């Protein structure tokens, strides 16, 4: 097992502290989500990890060694997407593969395999400027993955993708995690990170405001939400019990509860009134809610 260890990374731009002593580690294959609002310091952290930016303090190591092109085979999808617009797709993929030390034939074979996996083989001989934004993004993802990296760093991988491509990328990342890859993924889309991440680092204004195993974090919050679907109107019951409705749609309603006792009370009152629950789910808060809660507590 390898270890990606980040210790006390700090970076300032003039007076502004962009990243303030961030530490975390990934010690087994899987996804670590780096989340935060725009300007939280996610991209700066990634750039310091990869050595694109020099940190003012702290270190980023892989198995105890400073992360360099030589010490670890890493793949990087930058936030700012960039490919050669007037170059054929296959030519630039092979080029990036060769730059990563692959032979021409190995790079070409890997490019073709990944293009097939991401369903873009029809563009193999086209120049990149003729591709849609989503397909260009897939090509850049292939460029990052072409040399089969151990450590994969994806900076906002889902931004700009349509639902079909988002789903395809979800499956792809799941596959990578299942194939023992160490993945660091930054995003401000909480639902996406929640879906993949085993571990989490939440940033705000360059500081870590929450980090750890996502399941444990959520478990720490306990059962805070109650989702109820019923054929009859249950608003009166919830109002009688003083439950705060945080979401409601044509099918169901979601309430904030302080513990399982609130849920029991709700279920009993519904039974007394002859209301049959079609769905009755007690759950932990979503990552989005945790994030908002954390932000609220900071204010």
């Amino acid at each position, binding site marked *: 097992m390898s270890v990606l260890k980040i210790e006390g990374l700090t970076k300032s731009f003039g007076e502004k502290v962009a990243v303030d002593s961030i530490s975390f580690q990934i010690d087994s294959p899987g996804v670590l989500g780096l989340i935060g609002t725009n300007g939280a310091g996610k991209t700066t952290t990634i750039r310091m990890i990869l*050595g*694109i930016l020099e940190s003012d303090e702290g270190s980023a190591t892989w198995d105890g060694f400073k992360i360099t*092109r030589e010490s670890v085979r890493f793949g*990087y999808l*930058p936030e700012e997407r*960039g*490919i050669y617009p007037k170059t054929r797709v296959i030519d630039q993929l092979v080029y990036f593969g060769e*730059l990563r030390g692959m032979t021409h034939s190995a790079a070409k074979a890997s490019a073709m395999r990944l293009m097939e996996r991401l369903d873009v083989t029809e563009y193999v001989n086209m120049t990149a400027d003729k591709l849609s934004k989503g397909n260009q993004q897939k090509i850049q993802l292939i*460029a*990052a993955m072409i040399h089969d990296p151990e450590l994969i760093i994806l900076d906002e991988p889902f931004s700009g993708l349509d639902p079909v491509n988002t789903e395809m990328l979800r499956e792809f990342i799941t596959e990578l995690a299942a194939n023992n890859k160490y993945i660091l993924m930054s995003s401000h889309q909480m639902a996406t990170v929640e879906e993949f991440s085993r571990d989490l680092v939440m940033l705000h204004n360059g500081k870590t405001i929450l980090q750890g195993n996502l399941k444990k974090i959520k478990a720490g919050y306990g059962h805070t939400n109650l989702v109820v679907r019923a054929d009859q109107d249950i608003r009166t019951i919830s109002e009688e019990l003083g439950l705060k409705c945080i979401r409601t749609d044509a099918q169901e309603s979601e309430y904030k509860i302080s513990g399982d006792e609130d849920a029991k009370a709700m279920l009993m009152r519904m039974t007394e009134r002859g209301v049959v629950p079609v769905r009755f789910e007690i759950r932990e808060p979503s990552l989005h809610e945790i994030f908002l809660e954390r932000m609220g507590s900071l204010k």
Partner: protein
Amino acid sequence: MKSILTVFKFTFKEALRKKAFIITTIIGLALIIGAAFIPIIERQIKNADLFGDSEESKTLYFLDKSDGAIPGAKDVLVEMFSGASVETATEDQISEYEENIKKDSNYALLVLEMTDSGPHMVLMTKSFMSGLDVNSISQAISPLYISSVMKEQGISDEMVAFSQSMISSEMKYLGNMDVSGYAVGIAILMVMFFAIYYYGYSVALSVASEKASRVMETLIVSTKPSNVLIGKCLGTGALGLTQLSVFLITGAIGYEVLVPDDFTLMGMPLSLSSFTFASAVFVLLYFIFGFSLFAFLNAAAGALVDKMEDLGAAMMPVTIMSMASFYVGYFVAVMDPGGIIGEIAFFAPLTSPFIVPFKLLNSDFSYTDAIISLAVLVITTVIVAKVSAGFYTKSVLRYGKRLKFKDLKGAKD
């Protein structure tokens, strides 16, 4: 090293496919082939001027009003205008001849008459565009008149012939400079400037477009920025050498096939005797390192911008440096090959790529000086390459704000 080769191959292949390269190559080849035709065209024009090989029939009317003062004048005209019909004219038909000449440029009338000061010739043509030159006719006929007068004075035929003989003469140049070396030296100077300007611009454009299209961030995590920069400069330089070689080969074939054997430049035959193997090697090395020096400077300029429209302004200092160096080289070559400016420019890294190749072909020089000059150029190129790589690395994440020299502190490769 492998990364440099990869960037080199990619840069070379991509540039080779570009329309701009294909179009400039075609235009260059067309110009070279056109230039090879110039001696033939020039000869055709000269022949046409003398009523020679032109397809249309030409007539020169000759009206002798001198009562035969110059015997054999018509024979000289017949020999001179071998492709034309030289007809004896009569005075009563002058108006008819003049009408013909006004209508058709293929007619001309030469009137020879005696005046108090001696024979006088009038040549009538349709316009000054006819190309006929009355002075050359006068020079051809004058010896006949002089010998005729001398014979009338009882001077012997031998003396007459002796009086008209010319002193034989020839030029000998004791220095290393001949017209061929001079012409080739100036041509190399021009080619060097073209390469530095055109291909140097390509390097800056390539770096700026990589930055504008945000490819740079992917590139520098894939390999060292200096490898990208060196590979890019070498790839573009190799492309330039390839294009110039194509031009050179085409020029050589054109010279062999189209240029007449007796072609002369400023009266002297072309010869590449001053081009030795050693001088050819030096010219090649100066081309490679001279181009590289300016290419790295251009790469640094390209790295400074994040919008393509700012590239011209960022390149301005490098453009001014290259133009100033070229003009110093040119004026040293043309006006002051052995002066103090020439001596300084010989060793200065920005000007030596323009000066040394010219001097190699046109003056006596010491190979020690050339090696020192080359060493200065190589060392400067390496330093500039390192500084440019620093600019390149530092500039990757700079958008919207110009990079300054102080920002180079801490630049990593």
